[in-house]
């Protein structure tokens, strides 16, 4: 198992696509989380009638709201990006035929895939840490530029937000990972994964507003659970002027259980499928 993890890390850390996706997401997070609100703040700042709105926007990009601003980015935008990451790391094995190489070395297929899953989970942790790291850096700089106090959130709150972001990312990545194995293709997995998380689940969530029986189904969907987890950590929902994808929630327990369930189910199903099917 350790040999499989070492080997998968050796392969994944040298994949340009992994770093391209991570860097792209980090830049998008800075743009959506900091850049756009700050630009809007600047445009409103000179208007006395918009002073409250401008102040609210500025507060959102300062260290004091690092947790809520950061975690709010993950349910919709971050989740979709890491679906691509999950699909890339295993889908390319089918594209290049490299499963022939790695399945004919020493470890059993289950161990190989477990190694892949562990490394993918490590990459999603890296995505979460890198996102909050970049946001912290830029919010700190903005506090200095604006001459505001840098009221950093408690370490426990920040750690909780990073952990929640990691869980949201891993659950989404596991979907891409499973789909790439199921369809033996990166492109198909990305297409279906994005339709699943961005279109299908949001459509169900939208319908749940008018068809109350669907609210039960909504609670076990990936994107709404991610939104509820972010909401439970203080992120404002779209209806409350917050980020799209975030839902109001008083408890993090159910969303956490659902996201853990997705992660375990997708990794287990993907491993089982890849282990029992013929290769090549």
């Amino acid at each position: 198992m350790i040999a499989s993890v070492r080997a998968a890390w050796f392969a994944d850390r040298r994949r340009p696509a992994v770093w391209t996706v991570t860097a792209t997401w980090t830049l998008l997070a800075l743009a959506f989380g900091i850049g756009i609100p700050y630009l809007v703040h600047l445009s409103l700042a000179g208007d006395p009638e918009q002073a409250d709105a401008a102040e609210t926007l500025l507060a959102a990009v300062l260290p004091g709201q690092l947790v809520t601003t950061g975690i709010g980015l993950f349910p919709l935008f971050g989740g979709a990006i890491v679906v691509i990451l999950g699909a890339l790391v295993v889908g390319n094995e089918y594209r290049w035929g490299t499963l022939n190489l790695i399945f004919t070395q020493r470890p059993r297929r289950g161990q190989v895939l477990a190694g892949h899953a562990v490394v993918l989970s490590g990459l999603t942790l890296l995505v979460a840490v890198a996102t909050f790291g970049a946001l912290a850096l830029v919010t700190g700089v903005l506090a200095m530029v604006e001459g505001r106090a840098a009221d950093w959130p408690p370490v426990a709150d920040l750690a909780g937000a990073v952990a929640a972001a990691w869980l949201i990312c891993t659950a989404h990545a596991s979907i891409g990972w499973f789909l790439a194995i199921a369809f033996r293709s990166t492109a198909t997995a990305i297409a279906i994964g994005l339709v699943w998380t961005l279109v299908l689940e949001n459509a169900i969530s939208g319908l749940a507003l008018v068809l109350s029986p669907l609210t039960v189904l909504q609670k076990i969907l990936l994107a709404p659970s991610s939104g509820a987890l972010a909401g439970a950590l203080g992120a404002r929902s779209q209806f409350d002027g917050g980020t799209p994808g975030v839902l109001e929630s008083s408890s993090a327990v159910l969303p956490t259980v659902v996201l853990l369930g997705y992660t375990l189910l997708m990794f287990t199903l993907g491993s089982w499928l890849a282990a029992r099917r013929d290769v090549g």
Partner: protein
Amino acid sequence: MGDRFAVELHEVSKRYPGGVTAVDGLDLRVREGEVLGFLGPNGAGKTTTMRMLVGLVRPSGGRIRVLGEPPGRQLARVGALIESPTFYPHLSGRDNLRLAARYAGVPDAAADRVLAEVGLTDRAGSPFRTYSLGMKQRLGVAAALLKEPSLLILDEPTNGLDPAGVAEMRELLRTLGQRGQTVLLSSHVLAEVEQVCDRIAVINRGRLVAEGTPDELRGALGTGVLLIDADPTDEAIACLRADDRVAAVQQVDGQLRVSTDPALAGALNRLLVTAGVEVRELRPLRHSLEEAFLELTAPAPSRPQRSDQPAATTGANR
């Protein structure tokens, strides 16, 4: 060469969804320490068989043992290059081998050893995607050698190699055979197979049709022709044509090609000697390995029915 078997297949079959039968009741055994040539036309089932031996493909029926275990259990002692070499295009040859070494649990240093063995050290740092077909093939063989395996399964290892590369590969295979490693070698280059293999197995349509040493295979399918070098030639031709056991006599390059049952060689020798003809040489005309292969794998309707094929070496008569 030992009496134990590194590979045993008994009544193995592989049927794919859609009704395609790639392997159909195949029986094959590879002795420990032998180099076995595995021949067959395209689509005969060679690659599927090799894939089953390393556990990439599961058989639909039958029993397979590789180094005494079911496929996939002894991968630490099996090296394989099956079909085209598959590696990470953005990684160098050396890094691809290091990656395989990590999965295999062997030291990274093994990568440099096998790179030298296949003559790829100079380009070891270049990305795999920049390799020529021959270099990719060499890297595939290097990966197969990484674990110093007891059993080496090579599917068309000389594919894409230049003549010098083919000769080097042949030398490498000979060395492996001398080291006592078991090699199962699939190739369409029959001269290569003939030179390096202890035995040859021929499959067609998923079934074993013949197996034996290269000499046995060449001799297994009788040509029905005796070559006779006799003097005086005219008297020998007249004498043979007068015998009703002889179907035809042709003179080719000073030798007589006599169409008859090769078992009559002794009787015809006596006939000629009694008639005062000096017989300098008399031997059955043998197929080349290529002719034997083509005949063994010919489509069923055009394949001649023979009654003189030795049952011990040709599976078709069993």
